[in-house]
């Protein structure tokens, strides 16, 4: 398959993630949308890595695979972020009995 279909797919996923993160009010769903954004980046990186490998000479072969290593780093960081994020959401739930992010508007006053 051509590379452009992969780019279209991951950009679509990315846009769904952005729209979800900006419009939904439930903080868990916002968080899931952000995870979707990160995973669309993973897909894009792997696709580009394959693309570079197809046209690669021996010298840049190892460089082209570096994107696949990058994907593992993104997964690890996303996991770390989720563990901190869920802890903060639980903290908020304990104090307000709600995980709606509209509570945030209270800060403005």
């Amino acid at each position, binding site marked *: 398959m051509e590379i452009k279909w992969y*780019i279209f797919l991951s950009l679509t996923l*990315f846009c769904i*993630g*952005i729209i979800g*993160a900006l419009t939904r009010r439930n*903080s868990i769903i*916002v*968080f899931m949308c*952000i995870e979707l*954004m*990160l995973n*669309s*980046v993973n897909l*894009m*990186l792997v696709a*580009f*890595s394959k*693309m*570079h490998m197809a046209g*690669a000479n021996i010298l*840049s072969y190892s*460089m*082209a695979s*570096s*994107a696949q*290593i*990058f994907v593992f*780093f*993104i997964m690890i*960081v996303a996991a*770390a*972020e989720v563990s*901190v*994020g869920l*802890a*903060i*959401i639980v*903290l*908020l739930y304990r*104090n*307000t009995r709600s995980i709606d*992010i509209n*509570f*945030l508007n*209270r*800060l*403005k006053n």
Partner: protein
Amino acid sequence: MNAIIITALWGVIMMFGGVFFKKSTTPKFWAIAGIIIVLLANLFEFFGHPFFNVDTKGMLKFDSFGLHFNTIAFICTLLFFLLNGKDFEKIGMHVSEYFALMFFVLCGLSILSSFNTLLLLFLGIEILSIPLYILTGSDKRNLKGNEAALKYLLMGAFSTGILLMGIALIYGGNTLGSFYIDAINLGTGNLPVLIAGGLVLILVGISFKVSAAPFHFWAPDVYDGAPAVVSSFMMTIVKIAAFVAFFRLFQTSFGAMQHQWQMLIVVITAATLLIGNITAVFQKSVKRMLAYSSISHAGFMMFTLFALNDTAKEGLLLYAAAYSIATIGIFAVIIKMSDYSIEGFNGLGKKQPLLALTAVIFLLSLTGIPLTAGFTAKFYVLMAAVKDGHQLWLVVLAVICAAIGAVYYFKVIQAIYFKDPVPGVNDEINVSSSFKFLLVVTAALIILLGFLPGLLIDWIYY
């Protein structure tokens, strides 16, 4: 390498030390000892004696600019720990863990000042941000703090997603298939579509991190909601680290084709300066006003990304030092008060003459009055923009905005000296004599840098 390894190790030591420290004041001394060790180790590396020889395959590159920035950041942190170390006990019981998290932030900072691939840029930013999410929410009972933490976390994770997409597009766009920032450099040719898209996304990602308009909306709420000690740290050391990282990235990778994307920076800079300064005028709480003023200072630091020349490099370091020291100082004074409103400052000049005098020096430096470090720093960043020669109206706008800045800083100075104290507000301000001495040292540093900026700048070319 010294700074990266020792900060990470010391963070672990502080974390486990929390189990063994019996007295609540012990962690403070360990943290101060740790930051002094890190500072010395970094100086050793600066003068050519690294302790560790790790082969990073060129992923980290230690040059005098990055190491010098580390020194500045560690000195600011040392001042911060000395001035505010005691106030961490106000947040909660786990003082040692707060210090541990700060050491992890410093580890991220030293990665950001020396990265050479986009992978380490991403990791550095995350190591810098994730401990901060926890620190923002460290006051568990405070609802405002909880909400600030959630907001910061969601915005931070969102901007990381955008930044990562930018990195992926740049990786796809360059024919080498490399993450090394010097390999991305395309020379002076035209920007390919993928790389241009990646550049815009990275720029959006940065603007979130350094709170530049139009992506600044989280900043006032987070800085206001977080415990005052933590927001002092976030507004200064974390922000300047993000600026240095992006200066490094843009200068190495996209410096040659700067004029194709300079207009984006111009729009961001102008919007940041106007929004930050004009909104700050209407704030009633000094803490919130400083949050808006930190947005406007981000606007001034954006000038270094606009110009990207050698003067910009000097200006960035000078601005980082001047802004951090002054903000840490004024926050040290604010934290001692119970009421953060401007009325809370009424008559401080009569109650605590020395505190008032140093606070005025910090505020004057933030305004940019001559003979303070703030003026020299503003002069350098604007001179960099003039040397660049494009879009001179932006410099005029910056000067006008600095004048608007005087309005809200002078409001506080007026409250300190020309108004009578309100009974019942901030009546008891207990400060030790060592705290007063440190405040005087901090104020002296600001005046010294105002007279002799060369003391700081010349080390870039060591």
